[in-house]
């Protein structure tokens, strides 16, 4: 049964055989199963109308996570449980999440509603609280154009007041069913497009060794991690992917290890899996991750994929380059380690040799004298790609900067260190004057472009100002971030 995708849906094992491996979960649900409760609003992971919940066996219980069905390829469901909006009230009674949405007038046109219900359902299953900030994070990937969100936030509080529904993840049935679906062989799909005759192949190896062999053999295969980039190549750019190797089942790539403060993050570690360790490393990195995409995106998207993709506006790169990260690349049984910044050669060109893949990214321990900041500037706080992302790592001795590592995204055709700016600061006394010098050095480092996210002038100006912001925060100014601000209290 290596060529059949099997997953649990509404308590039954659902089999999908002979499907196009780039068929999305959303297409499969809406068109093949005619479960049309799940909606398409954008087909790019940005609106959440397609949110479904995927359950995965982890340490004896089932962990539920939201994903964007619109950009998830069907094979990722293999061995998992899929929960859609229809599943929640399959027995006719509304789930507390649904009831709360009804009670609080959480729907108007209703088109976004199934997506919100599923995000809230995952929130419920994970026993997260109803605090506004927590809920806003849980819902950042769900757009509603009608309600203004207030009633939905109210529902997120209300759902905890209603009689509790049993948590699915703890149900023995679910667990047994999923255990049965765990495979020892690799899922391997082959599909011939009836229209064009194109053959598409998809294989999901289980070990790093077999991954290495496959990557060496199929040099032009597309590696698929969380598919939050790759998915869009299909749904937005309508590209045809012929050979795909999924990293999703490679156990070794899913680990994150901490050694004396240093972190090794496997290439298949998602943002959600990494956020706590990274927040520990530095709270600003934690906050950055919180603002990357949405819960749905972070549940699928990987740090390794962000790096491998090599986009000049990816957020991990500036943050990690400044932090002094290295990248481990593997080919066959051999690994090599390079400074992260060296990986990015030119726009769209990375130092990835044929047959090689990203194995892990390594963060050195955060030294005691490290002053670290990362700022993400975008039109909207949540679920928005950065116009500029600036990261600053200063090793300080009193008020002298012994070592400066500064990296920016959105300022050049690759994520890049600000060499001149670093030079202006290294071994300098941290002061308003050095800030100004360092800021003007940025003009040597970068000649950003204008696009729909920001003009060149804004990019340069705000990047310069971020140096000032870093300085002010180092000096101890508390009020420099609008996100920390509260309204003026009533007199």
């Amino acid at each position: 049964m290596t060529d059949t995708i099997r997953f649990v849906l509404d308590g039954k094992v659902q089999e999908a055989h002979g499907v196009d491996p780039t068929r999305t979960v959303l297409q499969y649900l809406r068109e093949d199963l005619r479960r049309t409760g799940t909606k398409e609003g954008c087909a790019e992971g940005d609106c959440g109308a397609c949110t479904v919940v995927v359950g995965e066996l982890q340490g004896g219980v089932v962990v539920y996570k939201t994903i964007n069905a619109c950009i998830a390829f069907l094979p990722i469901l293999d061995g998992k449980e899929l929960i859609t909006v229809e599943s929640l009230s399959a027995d006719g009674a509304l789930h507390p999440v649904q009831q709360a949405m009804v009670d609080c007038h959480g729907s108007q046109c209703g088109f976004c509603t199934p997506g919100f219900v599923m995000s809230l359902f995952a929130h419920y299953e994970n026993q997260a609280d109803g605090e506004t900030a927590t809920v806003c994070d849980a819902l950042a990937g769900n757009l509603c154009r009608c309600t203004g969100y207030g009633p939905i936030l109210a529902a997120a509080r209300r759902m905890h007041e209603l009689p509790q529904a049993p948590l699915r993840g703890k149900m023995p049935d679910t667990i047994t069913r999923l255990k049965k679906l765990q495979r020892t062989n690799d899922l391997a799909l082959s599909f011939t497009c009836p229209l064009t005759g194109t053959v598409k192949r998809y294989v999901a190896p289980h070990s790093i060794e077999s991954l290495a062999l496959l990557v060496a053999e199929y040099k032009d295969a597309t590696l698929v991690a969380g598919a939050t980039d790759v998915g869009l190549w299909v749904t937005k750019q309508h590209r045809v992917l012929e050979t795909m190797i999924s990293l999703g089942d490679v156990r070794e790539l899913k680990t994150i290890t901490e050694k004396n403060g240093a972190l090794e993050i496997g290439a298949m570690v998602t943002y959600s899996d990494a956020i706590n360790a990274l927040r520990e490393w530095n709270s600003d990195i934690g906050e950055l991750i919180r603002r990357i995409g949405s819960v749905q995106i972070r549940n699928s998207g990987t740090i390794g994929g962000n790096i491998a993709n090599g986009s000049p506006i990816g957020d991990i790169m500036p943050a990690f380059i400044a932090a002094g990260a290295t990248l481990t690349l593997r080919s066959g049984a051999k690994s090599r380690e390079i400074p992260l910044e060296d990986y990015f050669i030119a726009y769209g060109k990375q130092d990835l040799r044929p047959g090689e893949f990203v194995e892990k990214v390594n963060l050195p321990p955060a030294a005691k004298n490290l002053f670290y900041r990362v700022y993400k500037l975008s039109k909207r706080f949540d679920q928005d790609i950065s116009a500029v992302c600036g990261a600053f790592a200063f090793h300080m001795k009193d008020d002298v900067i012994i070592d400066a590592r500064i990296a920016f995204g959105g300022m050049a055709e690759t994520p890049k260190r600000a060499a001149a700016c670093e030079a202006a600061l290294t071994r300098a006394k941290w002061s308003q004057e050095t800030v100004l010098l360092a800021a003007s050095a940025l003009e040597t480092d970068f000649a950003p472009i204008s696009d729909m996210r920001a003009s060149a002038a804004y990019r340069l100006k705000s990047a310069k100002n971020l140096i000032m912001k870093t300085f002010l925060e180092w000096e101890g100014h508390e009020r420099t971030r609008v996100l920390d601000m509260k309204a003026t209290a009533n007199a």
Partner: protein
Amino acid sequence: MPDASNNISVESRIKGDVREAVRHDSAEKHVAGTAIYIDDMAPPKDLLHVYIAMSTRANARITRLELGRVRSAPGVEIVLAAEDIPGKNDYSPIAGDDPVFADGEVFYIGQPLFAVAADSIEAGRAAAGLAVIEYEDRQPVVTIADARAAASVLECVEPMRLGDAQAALNNAANRISGKCNIGGQDHFYLEGQVALALPKEDGDVHVYSSTQNPTEGQHVVARVLGKQQNDVVVELRRMGGGFGGKETQPSLFAAIASLVAVKTGRPAKVCLDRDDDMIMTGKRHDFEIEYDIGFKDDGEIEGAAVTLESRCGYSADLSSAINDRAMFHADNAYFLNNAEIQSHRYRTHTVSNTAFRGFGGPQGMMAIECALDAVAFQIGADPLDVRLRNLYARPGRDMTPYGQVVEDSVARELMEELAANAQYRSRRAEIAEFNRCNKVLKKGISLTPVKFGISFTTTHLNQAGALVHVYTDGSVHLNHGGTEMGQGLMVKVAQIVAHEFQIDLGRIKISATVTDKVPNTSATAASSGSDINGMAAREAARTIKGRLASFAAEKYRCAPNEVVFRNNSVHAGEQCISFNDLVKAAYFARISLSSTGYYRTPKIHYDRAKQKGRPFFYYAYGAAVSEVVIDTLTGENRVLRVDILHDVGRPLNPAVDLGQIEGGFIQGLGWLTTEELVFDDAGALKTHAPSTYKIPTCSDRPDIMNIEIWEKGENIEESIHKSKAVGEPPLMLAISAFSALSWAVAAAGDGKAAPRLNAPATPEEILRAVDDVRRRATEV
């Protein structure tokens, strides 16, 4: 007609009466995923999927269009272009200038060229890519500035005039002028444009169309097919959001789906993906506004000259009425004394801009609100005082620039009550203190009112029809011309009918809007949905009720006015009988239990040549206070707190109304802050998906948001149950946030130079305005 039930509405005990906070009729279905939108309908056998190929040039002659390879591509059933249209190649609402398929020339990037109907959308899209298309480019007119320079004008209109503005300006003690650019806005309804056409006998067609205007869809489909209107039925149960974006534009997709269906005899669906939707369809007009205000030392306006320039796109669409409404709202809630309001409507090589919640009103209102902030800045006054000083008041200060007397102004009461509740003044003082102590972050606060004219300004549109059937078991089937886009219209109208018959809401069946039940309807737009359809439905119900009352009076030998409908029963003199039994008895007595109802809004008229009249039946009011904070290093900003007091008259359904208020505010906030439409020099929209076009998310909603319906609200006109329309007005409450951002920018320059902020106030725009104000502050 007997209407005793009206007197007992207070103590009525039916379930789901008017004024009850009844939930949306589809709420349970929304949350369960069982509410059916058009793309959710079971695909009919042999369904064709239609892909629409678009122009990649903004202004060009098509020199070659070869579709041979498209036609022979796998999976393709038919390819249709301009020459295949049997009727008129035009889907425009009024002006006759919107070709379904480009005919020799293209006028915007995204204009439909041809349609490919195939077994799957993928096959259609792939086939479309095989077309050979060549263009001869001409210089496109993209922006308002381009259009101004090229004198590319869509329509010229007379200014609105009150008194002598120029003389007042020349003689005024103080004078200030300024500008503001206001970006457009994509509707971003979550459900994209979609139409499904089923071929019927005789070449007729039944179209399911996600539209706010089924009647127009019907007319356009008939026109394009070269058929009579009675050959076409358009049906719609619900939209996944409309906001004006489904007022005129769905006709295009309904027409294309119908063409395919009629030509092939197979059902056909057009369902746009998000990018195509955003590229192909029109948006809120962007504006450049200019004001010149003469005022007394205390800020009282003596004269105002306002110029409103807008980008209309390549065709007229509804631009005429939209820009009219901008002019109608350039006074907002203020008496201008002497005024001249000019409007320049530019034709550009961009998508034809269209209706969007507020319909030009928001842009017009921005003009006067920006101006009043400038006046307050100039004289160093609290802008609230300047606003209060200039409100309409009776008598003497109640004449609008378009000749309507403002008889119902409640703005002062609302604003003062809100200022007190929200502790506006003390918070403003604290904010000034905060700004003195903080270098990086600056705060601002502002309270602005909304006065919004209710009625279609195109007078003939103010009519509505309904159809009510009572079945022999006493259950009721309700139909009317209004459409459901999430605004809760259906439940409100059902509440009105339940109230009329005095039966529980659950006895009333809400049904799809369909052109063969209620004909010749107007779009569900201009916030008028429940006002006019509610009246029509009540009329229909009253007709039936009148018949039932006469029947009961006769049967139980009492006077007809002694027949009282109350709580699912009917009291006739001494007798009490259930509604259901009365209905059954009436049926056996051969009493008609079905009726149409019709309504036209009274009192309104307008003479566009003179720019005078009474375009509005009444005004809806509201006011909001917003507190914001900006980061002067990055331009990042947040709205921290909002307090709203809004007048919905006597609410038909407070829950639905609150939803409209909050949703409208947040949508307005998006328009003025994060939502930026970026066109490149060639006229291509660069922000055509949510990855680049940012509507507010949950966390953009202010942490503190206090929304109240004004308890004293009551419509002085005879509106349905004394309620007021609520769809559009709250959107403009968000101007308070923009104004507050302006004041925060002013604080960044230590109040030494007037802020010049444009909308949307993105971080980039705020940083630009901060740097600008600081530069000018050091110059003085």
